[in-house]
């Protein structure tokens, strides 16, 4: 065959038009969900994790917590569970980040870079897949709270569902923090060590486990500006019922603002060539 000869037999088949973004996202999300749930053991343990948190924290802190420091008429489990709905997402987000780095190191994401597709869609797919796992964790947490401690949301079903919905949005934004970190850092070791410095203060320097007013002054100051505190307060007020104030608006604004910033950063980071 000479170079000027026509295309080979195979190439007479018309070339496909690259998938549109929506189609890319569908295909990529389906892939990512399969991968996130590929190993049953990982799923089992990650779903069981918040239950362990619930058991330990309710017993360790609950035994110390003086009823008088809690809002009037609220048990520690009522105080804690809505907070766990939010803080559970921190661990999940970190593992989403680690998963993304692994994915980017070898594997398919290397190939995605030379396919005609939008790389940020890979990240969106990842965030959605991990969010579904978080959703399962939240449901398990509520059921465990009910079965083990007779938890009932003061705000009733509506309040509980609202708290779950708000937590889901907050967790989505937390996932994006770690996706952006992962896309920038691209090393599991670096991500895990930095992840600790991000996740522990987010979780503990907050109003999640004790009310802010009992914290030492400096920590109370940190906890007040911690976006997780706002989310926890919002989730708690929804679940407890009664007056729902500005906490919810504040939490949603913080989450959506954070998510917007992180998606921009992550999209820039993931487009960076692999060797630079």
């Amino acid at each position: 065959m000479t170079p000027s000869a026509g295309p080979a037999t195979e190439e007479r088949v018309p070339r496909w038009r690259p998938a549109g973004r929506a189609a890319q996202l569908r295909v990529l999300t389906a892939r990512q969900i399969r991968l996130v749930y590929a190993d049953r053991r990982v799923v089992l343990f990650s779903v069981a994790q918040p239950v362990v948190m619930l058991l330990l924290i309710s017993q360790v802190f609950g035994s110390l917590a003086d009823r008088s420091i809690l809002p009037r008429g609220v048990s520690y489990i009522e105080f804690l569970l809505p907070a766990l709905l939010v803080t559970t997402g921190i661990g999940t987000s970190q593992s989403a980040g680690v998963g993304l780095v692994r994915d980017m190191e070898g594997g398919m994401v290397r190939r995605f870079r030379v396919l005609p597709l939008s790389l940020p869609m890979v990240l969106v797919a990842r965030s959605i897949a991990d969010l579904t796992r978080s959703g399962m964790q939240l449901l398990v947490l509520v059921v465990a709270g009910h079965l083990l401690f007779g938890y009932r949301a003061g705000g009733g079903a509506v309040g509980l569902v609202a708290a779950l919905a708000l937590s889901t949005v907050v967790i989505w934004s937390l996932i994006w923090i770690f996706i952006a970190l992962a896309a920038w850092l691209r090393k599991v070791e670096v991500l895990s060590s930095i992840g600790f410095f991000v996740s522990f203060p987010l979780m503990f320097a907050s109003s999640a486990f004790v009310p802010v007013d009992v914290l030492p002054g400096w920590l109370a100051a940190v906890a007040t500006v911690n976006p997780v505190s706002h989310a926890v307060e919002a989730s708690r007020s929804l679940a407890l019922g009664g007056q729902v104030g500005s906490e919810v608006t504040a939490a949603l604004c913080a989450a959506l603002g954070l998510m917007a910033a992180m998606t921009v950063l992550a999209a820039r980071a993931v487009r960076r060539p692999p060797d630079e």
Partner: protein
Amino acid sequence: MAVDQVIRATGLRKRFGAVQALDGVDLTVARGEIMGLLGHNGAGKTTLVNVLSTLTPPTSGTASVAGFDVAGRPDEVRRRIGVTGQFAALDEELSGHDNLVLVARLCGASKAQAAGRADELLEAFGLRAAAGRRAATYSGGMRRRLDLALGLVGRPDVLFLDEPSVGLDLPSRLGLWERVQGLARDGTAVLLTTQYLEEADRLADRITVLGAGRVLASGTAVELKARAGSGSISLRVGPQGDRTVAAEALGRAGFPSDVDDGRGELTVPAGDSADLAVVIRVLDAVGQNVTEIRYAEPSLDDVYLAFTATAPDAPAPAAAALDRPPAPAPARAAPRITLPEAERRTGDTPETP
């Protein structure tokens, strides 16, 4: 598309911090041509492939692949290329079939088209029986075949093969080579990077030797060998023979020889295989009975050394950089009398312009 030169690069430069990875590379590859890119680690092979496959933009210079500028229209380039490398880029947890379907769907195929294309490729790459198994369970050779198949899902005009045989056993490597040759026959241009000289010799229509980010030499294997110098004749004389006498006689006849007493061999430089007869006659005349004799062309080893040694800043041609593939026998160790290599690639390889 009426582009004959499906890869056309001019003055490509790429700098990473203090490292000038590419320092003005020109390269053209025609439809249906296999271009071998040969060089040490760090010579710039992978960077060149990364630039041409739109993974990383050049610092300066231009390149078009399949008719589109790599920096300006990367998405059009990506529709027309396939990339496969030393690290199999696939989803371990998905089956071979599902890996292929995934890539086809992302390339824009409908579900039915994707399934059809997956089956075609599984068949063509001998993976039908393993189609439903997780890729994690595949052997090294199967993974590499799947990786190559994944690179071909979109029916690329240009295929980039980055060190495709690293870590493959001999049968897998031979199988891979056959497939690559088949693709080129069907019109796909192939850019193959390798450190294995034998691989470049076997597969490539033309070879470009890179060193320190520059093109040191380029041409067919035969041309490069010719430029690298002469071949050699190695021989043994019979038990009654005397290597010293033989060496003196050869020296008088214009064949300065190296005597290797350890191996009991004499080696003389030779222009071509016609010198075999001359050497035998010279030795016969002084009563030396030749029991073994063979002619060896300059190998690509020699080519490689000849060109890379002249590269500024080129690392010393250390053993590591000259690794041969672990298993296959090099051409030199072959039969007792090796005639000059006939055209190994016969048939319909395209004329290189």
